[in-house]
């Protein structure tokens, strides 16, 4: 058991690719219901961190625990409670929106896949296109459907990797609305983004990852947006680590 009731605990997380360090010892605790927005320049290790948290990558060292489950020891249990939204849609182009959702619902052993798919199609405003093939969808529609896909298992931990990339205004608002509602329902959210405005508006914690290190982490309530913007710009310009 952990020493406190941290919902998500990352300790000493390291990862390198061909000798190049992508993550250089990340430590992070999140409580249930926290919404962490993580910023950082390109190549800072944000996507690597998300992929390790999602069990898609093995860490070089360190651990990730959710509700005291070690993700490496219990990957299936861990993944059953996880949702991921990326700039990739994770959707099958040759299947309809409904077929995609029903397929994923069945994989996650949702009790009534058809009903869950119908419910989520309504939630993302795609009921009228439920039986159209995904290949005919616009980028915004695909991203709305991918939001529905990520929510299919009603995840307790949601990981978002640049979810606003390529979204139009209405799809961005829809995503922000869903994130707010999930946060209201005490879901824990980790979002990697370059979008300062959207990243700050919903977050309860804000962090900056630079050169594989978590160099900045503060509660949103304690944060002065101007001071944060200034700090972020410094890291974007490549200020050496302290």
């Amino acid at each position, binding site marked *: 058991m952990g020493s406190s009731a941290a919902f998500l605990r990352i300790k000493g997380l390291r990862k390198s690719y061909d000798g190049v360090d992508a993550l250089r010892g990340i430590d992070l605790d999140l409580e249930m219901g926290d919404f962490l927005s993580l910023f950082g320049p390109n190549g800072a290790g944000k996507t690597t961190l998300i992929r390790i948290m*999602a*069990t898609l990558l093995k860490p070089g060292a360190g651990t990730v625990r959710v509700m005291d489950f070690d993700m490496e020891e219990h990957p299936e249990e861990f*993944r059953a409670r996880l949702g991921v939204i990326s700039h*990739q*849609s*994770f959707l099958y182009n*040759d299947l309809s929106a409904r*077929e995609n959702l029903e397929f994923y619902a069945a*994989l996650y052993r949702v009790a009534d896949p058809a009903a869950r798919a119908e419910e989520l199609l309504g939630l993302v405003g795609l009921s009228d296109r439920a039986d159209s093939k995904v290949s005919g969808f616009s980028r915004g529609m695909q991203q709305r459907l991918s939001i529905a*896909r990520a929510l299919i298992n009603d995840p307790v931990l949601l990981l978002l990797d640049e979810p606003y990339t390529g979204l139009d205004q209405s799809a961005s608002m829809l995503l922000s609305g869903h994130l707010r509602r999930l946060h209201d329902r005490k879901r824990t959210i980790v979002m990697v983004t370059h979008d300062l405005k959207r990243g700050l508006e919903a977050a309860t914690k804000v962090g900056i990852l630079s050169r594989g290190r978590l160099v900045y982490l503060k509660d949103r309530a304690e944060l002065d947006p101007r001071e944060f913007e200034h700090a972020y710009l410094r890291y974007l310009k490549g200020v050496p680590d302290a």
Partner: protein
Amino acid sequence: MRDALLIARKDLLAEYRKKESIVSMVFFGFLLLVMLNIAVGVGRELDGEMAAGILWVSIIFSAVLGLGRVLSKEKENRCIDALLLSPVEPEQIYAAKTMVNFIFMAVAEAVLIPAFFVLYGDRFARQVPMLVVVVLLVNIGFSTVGTLFSAITAGTRRNEVLLPLLLFPVITPLMALAVKVTGGLFEDLPYREYSSWLYVIAAFGLIFSGVGYLLFEFVIKEG
């Protein structure tokens, strides 16, 4: 097995809609049969083993076309990540993809083998039920190895080139056995003449099912 069947069903539904893989496999296999028929001389009497060689070259080369597509389809929109993110065990994904490759091969063979009899003579159609058994056993061997190797190459840039380069050396023994047994069938030899080779074909499929099942997770996941 439930998850493997779900994934396989999804793949078969997508193929039923587009018919990309099977149509190209059948067309390519048929072209090979025709070209090899011209190469050996139209109407020339072939011995059983040579005819079996022609049949298996056409089947295996056409099967490689479908093999590459089954996993590369999952790379579109990074759907493979979504499968790996789900509670499904990677071994179930391997079982599903092996099943799909097996079915694609079987469907292509259902067209190519009758076409072979038409082009090369129905005198080879002597022990058809046993030929079906041989074909299904070879399909198991090919799809178990092929699925593993297509997973290895699916993430590479030169997937289509790399897959046959890696795969063919491994399946050459299977191909040789298939030719030997099928040649025996075409010559109408008694079962005892080729039965030992048949067991080796079955063992090949069994061994590579185990190897694929154990290794697939390490192959499909990023380090």
